[in-house]
C-alpha cells in the first residue's frame, strides 16, 4: 500500500524545454524598443523562475512579464515567451493564470501554424492536470501532444509523452497498459540513447513488476535503470531513489535483509538529507519498517518518529500518514493496541483529508485487524471503498481507451482538414494555372485570328481590286467590241457598197453635156471623199484603243464621278510622266483607291469644295498622288488625328510612303502622298 505514495514521489516532472531568444541579432535600430522589452521580459521571467525569491514576488514578476509580452507583435518570439510564462505559472501552481496563458499560447501557436508549440501547450496542460490529479484530462492532453510530436517526428518528446501516460496508467493499476506504453517509450528513446529518459522508463517498469509481484523482473529492470543512470551526468538523488525502490521490492518479497542492505546503501549519501529530505525521510521510514518486519525493533521507534518529523516539517501529509501507519504497526507489534489504534485512526483521517484512497484502504485494513470491536465496520468500509476504487479504475481505464480513440479521430480530422486545405490549395492553384493558360491560349488565338483577319483583309482588298478591274475590263471589252463591230461594219459593209456603187456609176457611159459630165465626175469624187471619211472614222474607232486610259484610272474616274454626282463638284484626273500602271502593284493601286475614297469622303463631309483635282505622277520610282480641293480648308494641327486622315496616314505608312497635308482655312487643302514603287 505504501508503494503508491513512494511511486508518486518518484515521478519526475518532465517539462518541455523552452528556448527563449531574447536577442535577435538581426534586429535593426528600429527594433531597439522591442529588444529592450524582450530583455525586460526575459529578466522578469528569470526572476519568476528563481526559487530563492518568495512565491508572491515570483508570481508578480511573472504577471508583469506576461503584460509586457502581451504588447509584442504576434510572432514566434512572443509565443515562446508565452509558453514559458505558462509553464512557470504551472510550476507556481497559479491555476487560473496558467489556464489563461496556456490557452493564449495555444491560440497563438494555432494562428502561427506552429505545431511544435501546440504540442507543447498540450504537454503543459497534461502536467497541470496531472498535478491536479485530474487524470483523464491529463491523459487526454498527453495523448494529443504525443500524436502531434509523433507527426512532427519528435522521437524524444513523443517518448516522454508515452512515459507520462504510462505513469498515469500505472496509477490506475492498469499495469499491462502501462507496461506496453513504457516499452513503446523505450523503443523511442533507444534510437537516440536518451539515458535519463530510459532510466525513468525502466524505473517505471520496475515499479510495475513489483506491483504485479514479479519481483525478479522488477529487480532486473531497476538494475537496467541504474545502468542507464550511470551514463547520466546530473544524477541528483535518482540513484538513491532506485535503491529505495529495489529495497521495497525486497521488502515486499520478505527478503528483509536485502531490503535493509539497499536502504542502508542509499542512506550512505550524506548530502541526501539536505538535497532530498523527502527521500531521506522515506528511506529512514522504510529502513525502520523493514527492520520491524525483520523483528529487529532496536531503536526503530525513534527512526519512525524522526521520519515523521521530517515529513511533518515538509508539510508532506501523505508521508506523515504513512509514518502513522508504520507507527501503528509498530505499536501493534509491541502489543500497545491503544496507541496502535490511535495512529491508525490518525492516518485514516489524514488519508481522508488528502483523498489518498490507497492509504485510506491500508488504514482501514489495519484498523480492522487491530480494533476487533469495530473490525466488522472497518472491514465493510474497506470493502466498499475498495470496490468503488476498483470500479473507478475500471471506468478510468475504459475512459482512456475512449480518449485514445477520440483523439485519434480528432487528429485524423485535423489531418483531413489540413490535407483538405492542401487539396483546396492545390486545386485552386491548378485551377488558376489552367485559367491563366486558357487565357493565354485565348489571347494567342485571338492574336492569330487578328493576323488571319488582316491577311484576309488584304486578300479581300486584292480581290476587290481584281473585281473592280475585271468589271472595268468587261465594260471596256463590251465597249470595244461594239466599236470594233461598228468599225468593221463601216469598213467592210458600207465602205464596200459605196465603193461598188461609185465604180459602177463610173462605168456607166453617161451621155450628156460636158458640163453634166464634169458634174458627174465631181459627184463621183465627192463619193470617193465620203469613202475616205468613212474609212478614217472606221480607223479611229479601232484605234481609240491606243488612246485608252488605263483600267486603274478608269476605276478612279468612276469613283470620283459617283462622288461628284452626289456633291456637285467638278473634277479633274491627271496622269503625268507617261505613267505605266503595269509597273505598279495592285497593293499600291488598291491603297491609292482607298486613299482617294477616304479623301473624297473628307471633302464630302467637310470641305464644300467646287473643284477637286487628282494628279498622279512618277519620278525616281516614287509615285506621287496629289489630291487638291478648293473647299473651306481646315487647321492641319487640330485635325491631324481625325479618323479620315488617320486612315490615310495608316495606309501610307503600310506602303512605306510619306504624306503631307497642307491646308489653310478658306483656302482649300492639298494632300501630297509619296509612295515608293
Amino acid at each position: 500500500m505504501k508503494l503508491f505514495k513512494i511511486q508518486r514521489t518518484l515521478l519526475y516532472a518532465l517539462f518541455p524545454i523552452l528556448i527563449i531568444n531574447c536577442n535577435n541579432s538581426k534586429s535593426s535600430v528600429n527594433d531597439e524598443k522591442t529588444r529592450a522589452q524582450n530583455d525586460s521580459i526575459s529578466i522578469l521571467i528569470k526572476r519568476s523562475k528563481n526559487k530563492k525569491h518568495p512565491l508572491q514576488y515570483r508570481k508578480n514578476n511573472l504577471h508583469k512579464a506576461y503584460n509586457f509580452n502581451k504588447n509584442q507583435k504576434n510572432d514566434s518570439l512572443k509565443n515562446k515567451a508565452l509558453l514559458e510564462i505558462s509553464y512557470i505559472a504551472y510550476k507556481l501552481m497559479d491555476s487560473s493564470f496558467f489556464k489563461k496563458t496556456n490557452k493564449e499560447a495555444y491560440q497563438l501557436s494555432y494562428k502561427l501554424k506552429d505545431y511544435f508549440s501546440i504540442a507543447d501547450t498540450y504537454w503543459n496542460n497534461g502536467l497541470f492536470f496531472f498535478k491536479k490529479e485530474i487524470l483523464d484530462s491529463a491523459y487526454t492532453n498527453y495523448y494529443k501532444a504525443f500524436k502531434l510530436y509523433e507527426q512532427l517526428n519528435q522521437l524524444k518528446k513523443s517518448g516522454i509523452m508515452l512515459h507520462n501516460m504510462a505513469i498515469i496508467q500505472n496509477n490506475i493499476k492498469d499495469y499491462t497498459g502501462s507496461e506496453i506504453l513504457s516499452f513503446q517509450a523505450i523503443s523511442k528513446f533507444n534510437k537516440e540513447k536518451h539515458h535519463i529518459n530510459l532510466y525513468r522508463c525502466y524505473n517505471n517498469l520496475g515499479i510495475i513488476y513489483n506491483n504485479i509481484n514479479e519481483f525478479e523482473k522488477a529487480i532486473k529492470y531497476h538494475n537496467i535503470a541504474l545502468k542507464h543512470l550511470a551514463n547520466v551526468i546530473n544524477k541528483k538523488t535518482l540513484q538513491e531513489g532506485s535503491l529505495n525502490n529495489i529495497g521495497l521490492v525486497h521488502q515486499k518479497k520478505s527478503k528483509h535483509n536485502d531490503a535493509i542492505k539497499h536502504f542502508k546503501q542509499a542512506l550512505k549519501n550524506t548530502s541526501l538529507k539536505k538535497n532530498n529530505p523527502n527521500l531521506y525521510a522515506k528511506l529512514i521510514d522504510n529502513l525502520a519498517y523493514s527492520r520491524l518486519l525483520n523483528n529487529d525493533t532496536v531503536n526503530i521507534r525513534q527512526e519512525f518518529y524522526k521520519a515523521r518529523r521530517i515529513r511533518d516539517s515538509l508539510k508532506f501529509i501523505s508521508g506523515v500518514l504513512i509514518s502513522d501507519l508504520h507507527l501503528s504497526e509498530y505499536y501493534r507489534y509491541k502489543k500497545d493496541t491503544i496507541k496502535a489504534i490511535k495512529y491508525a485512526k490518525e492516518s485514516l483521517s489524514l488519508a481522508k483529508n488528502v483523498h489518498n484512497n490507497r492509504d485510506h484502504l491500508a488504514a482501514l485494513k489495519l484498523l480492522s485487524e487491530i480494533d476487533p470491536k469495530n473490525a466488522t465496520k472497518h472491514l465493510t468500509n474497506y470493502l466498499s471503498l475498495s470496490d468503488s476504487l476498483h470500479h473507478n479504475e475500471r471506468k478510468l481505464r475504459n475512459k482512456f481507451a475512449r480518449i485514445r480513440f477520440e483523439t485519434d479521430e480528432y487528429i485524423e480530422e485535423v489531418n483531413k482538414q489540413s490535407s483538405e486545405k492542401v487539396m483546396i490549395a492545390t486545386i485552386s492553384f491548378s485551377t488558376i494555372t489552367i485559367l491563366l493558360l486558357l487565357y493565354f491560349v485565348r489571347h494567342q488565338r485571338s492574336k492569330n485570328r487578328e493576323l488571319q483577319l488582316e491577311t484576309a483583309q488584304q486578300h479581300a482588298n486584292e480581290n476587290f481590286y481584281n473585281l473592280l478591274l475585271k468589271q472595268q475590263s468587261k465594260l471596256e471589252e463590251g465597249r470595244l467590241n461594239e466599236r470594233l463591230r461598228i468599225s468593221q461594219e463601216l469598213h467592210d459593209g458600207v465602205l464596200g457598197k459605196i465603193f461598188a456603187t461609185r465604180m459602177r456609176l463610173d462605168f456607166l457611159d453617161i451621155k450628156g453635156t460636158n458640163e453634166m459630165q464634169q458634174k458627174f465626175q465631181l459627184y463621183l469624187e465627192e463619193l470617193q471623199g465620203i469613202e475616205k471619211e468613212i474609212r478614217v472614222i472606221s480607223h479611229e474607232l479601232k484605234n481609240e484603243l491606243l488612246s485608252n486610259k488605263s483600267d486603274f484610272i478608269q476605276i478612279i474616274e468612276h469613283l470620283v464621278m459617283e462622288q461628284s454626282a452626289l456633291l456637285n463638284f467638278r473634277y479633274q484626273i491627271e496622269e503625268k510622266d507617261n505613267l505605266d500602271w503595269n509597273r505598279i502593284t495592285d497593293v499600291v493601286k488598291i491603297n491609292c483607291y482607298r486613299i482617294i475614297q477616304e479623301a473624297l469622303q473628307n471633302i464630302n463631309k467637310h470641305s464644300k469644295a467646287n473643284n477637286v483635282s487628282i494628279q498622279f505622277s512618277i519620278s525616281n520610282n516614287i509615285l506621287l498622288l496629289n489630291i487638291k480641293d478648293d473647299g473651306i480648308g481646315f487647321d492641319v494641327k487640330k485635325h491631324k488625328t481625325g479618323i479620315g486622315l488617320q486612315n490615310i496616314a495608316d495606309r501610307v505608312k503600310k506602303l512605306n510612303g510619306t504624306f503631307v497635308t497642307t491646308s489653310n482655312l478658306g483656302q482649300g487643302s492639298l494632300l501630297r502622298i509619296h509612295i515608293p514603287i
Partner: protein
Amino acid sequence: MHKHSVLIIDDHPLIAEVYESALLNTSSKNNARNFSITIVDTCDKAIEKIRKATAIDLVFLDISLPISSDGSFLSGEDIGIAIRKRHPNTKIIVSTTYNDNYRVHNILKSINPEGFLIKNDFNRKDLVAAITAVLEGKPFYSITVLNLLRAHLNLDFFVDKIDRDILYELSIGTKTIDLTNVIPLSKGGIDSRKRKLKEMFDIVNESDKTLVQLAKEKGFI
C-alpha cells in the same frame, strides 16, 4: 487570139461586177484582149477553182474574205499565197479596203502582188490602167501603198516580222502577260525586243503606248 482567163475573188457581188465591167471595158478598148471571167465569193470556192484550173492569167483578190470552212484559209492573203504556189505565173491584183501599214506590208511580203489597189483610192480610170499595166507585165500600186514603200526606204534600221507582230499585238491592246501566247518568244525575249525597239525609236524610258504611237507614225503598223 489569146483568151485571158480571169478569176475574181470577192464576196461583194457588186464589186465583182465592177471588176467585170472594168475588164470588159479594157477588152472593148483593146480588141486584142479577150477574157474568160470566173467569179467566186468564198475562200472554199476560190481554192476549188485554183486547184482545178490549169492556168489562170489574172486574179482579182479581195483580202477581207470569210474564213474557209476547214479553217485553213483565214483571208484572201492565204488564198494569194496558195495561188502563188500553184500558179507561179499568174498575175495577182490585190484589191482591199485595208490600208493600215502593217497589213499592207505583210501582204507585200507574202504575196508580192503585181497590182496592189486600195479600194477607195482609185476610180474607173485607175482600175482600167491597173489591169492594163499588169497584163502588160508592169506593176501597179495604189498611191497609199507607194507612200508606205517610200517611208520604209527612209528607215535606216531593221524591224523584222516578230518585232512587227509585237508592235501590232501591243497596238490592239494585248496585255504584256498574254503576249507570250501569241508571239513565239519567252517573256524575257519579248521584253528585250521591246527594249531594243524603244532604243531604236529613242524612247528608252517611255511606256509601251508611246512605242506603239511612234511605230504607227513610222508606218510599221
